């Protein structure tokens, strides 16, 4: 399955320019009423690496994703993507700049077919887009189901479809919200392999995940959130031993 993705030629050579961060979140604050979901959170991602974002439930991981992708408006702070300030841009503009994401709860277009789910994302020549979409479907073994309504696919198939839909954006930065949840072991291994290959193509990936096997196996660097604050950052091994992290998860 080495070049099935066939995206390498489209790789953005200048993604982040090799120097500096591709994504830079500085002092981000997001409140919902009286709840501060993200609290003065800063983090920087370098291009071509896989990052993990972990933390107990309600620690602000998904809200951080929502702020980065423009689905939620930050209350304070700044977000730069490839040197350009993106907080304040509408979500669809941010997506077009090359930030793709999946959702914790699958959000596919149920009454569109599997193929159409991918097609709507791309502009330009339709025949070329169809061919690319079919290649993606084949990559996750869904080619025989291309004219099936996406709502009729199984949970795992929908999850793969959602990931392939993100790839139609040809994103430089991919945010995955719990990609392993509800996915069986065989599929999980394929998924992890696919994520690594996306990284090899030069993409940057940030993963929210509770499955420690995925986090430890894939991520080069992990951020830990607790009550919206970044309490730790480092390689997975060090994070596992960090006292503040253990405390956040298990209490004192």
């Amino acid at each position, binding site marked *: 399955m080495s070049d099935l993705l066939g995206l390498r030629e489209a790789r953005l050579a200048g993604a982040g320019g090799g120097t500096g961060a591709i994504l830079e979140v500085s002092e981000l604050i997001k409140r919902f009423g009286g709840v501060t979901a993200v609290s003065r959170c800063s983090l920087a991602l370098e291009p071509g690496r896989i990052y993990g974002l972990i933390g107990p439930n309600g620690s602000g991981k998904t809200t951080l994703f929502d702020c980065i*992708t*423009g*689905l939620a408006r930050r209350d304070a702070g700044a977000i730069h993507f490839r040197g350009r300030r993106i907080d304040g841009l*509408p*979500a*669809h503009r941010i*997506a*077009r700049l090359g930030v*793709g*994401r999946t*959702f914790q709860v699958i*959000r*596919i*277009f*149920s*009454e*569109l077919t599997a193929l*159409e789910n991918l*097609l*709507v*994302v*791309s*502009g330009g020549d*339709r025949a070329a*887009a169809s061919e690319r979409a079919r290649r993606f479907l084949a990559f996750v073994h869904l080619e025989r189901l291309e*004219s*099936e*309504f996406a709502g009729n696919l199984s949970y795992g198939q929908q999850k793969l479809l959602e990931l392939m*839909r*993100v790839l*139609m*954006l040809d994103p430089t930065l991919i945010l995955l919200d719990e990609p392993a949840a509800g996915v069986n072991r065989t599929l999980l291994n394929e998924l992890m392999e696919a994520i690594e290959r996306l990284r090899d193509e030069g993409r940057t990936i940030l993963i929210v995940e509770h499955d420690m096997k995925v986090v430890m196996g894939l991520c080069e660097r992990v951020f830990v959130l607790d009550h919206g604050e970044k309490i730790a950052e480092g390689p997975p091994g060090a994070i596992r031993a960090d006292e503040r992290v253990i405390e956040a998860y298990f209490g004192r």
Partner: protein
Amino acid sequence: MRRGFLVAGGAGLVALALYPLVGSGYGVRFMLQLFMWIALAQSWNLVSGLTGYVSFGHVAFFGTGAYATAILVAAHGWPWAPAALVGGLAAVALALVIGYPCLRLKGPYFAISMLGLNEVMRVLVSYFEGLTGGGLGLSLPALYASVPIYYAMGLSALAVTAAAHLIITSRFGLRLMTVREDEIAAEAMGIDTACHKLYAFLLSAFVPGVVGGLFARDQGYIEPVAVFPLAFTITMVVMVLFGGKGTVWGPVLGAACLFVLQELVWANFIYLHQLLFGAIIIIVVLFLPRGILGVLQQRYRLPRHV
């Protein structure tokens, strides 16, 4: 198979084009009204069937077109055909003014705001008596034009069905459906949902404006309650839901079935007619939420152009 359909469709169109030569006066008027309902249902489908933003005030565009046309014909001596086109443009202008703020509202709030639009338009038209004749209505110069209006209505129905075909089979149409399916995911996938909704809304307003103008010319007299009736909107909605929302031929099928049914029931049991649409709404919602074509599409995986 495809060729067979094309031949049958072409033959049907020729038959409809020749029909006024042989048909009775009643027959021509019946078909004229059927065309009107196809055009209205199909227009409603373009915005509400595709994007899921249910417009409960679509008749406002019909009424606006009717008044714009009637004023141009009665007060300025325009011929009815260009006047009806201007009626369509007036409806689009109204859609632009209303759509920009209202399409930000979601679900039931949008539906209610559109319901309000229709009431506001009716009151405005009643209020500006100098222009519209107020509650007394507006009379157009006498003209016998059933047959030309038959063709104009037919063309309107054909044009909006052709437009629906083009849109629904295109990626633009699929993107409109993503708004219905999951607006947040659509945004996250780079689809400018605000723009798409507005385009669909503007497209869906034009033909009702034109058809309203033709209706005004055909009736020869209009008044606020006659061209802004909530019942018209409800009829459009029921026709589309019955035939299959978001499909090309569903609105045509729904309009044809229900209009014929309505005529039969109306002619035979005058009071039952009022119960009919209510009963159909309940049956469709309970047993056929996707409508006739929607069910067939799901079961037999029909392509989008059906």
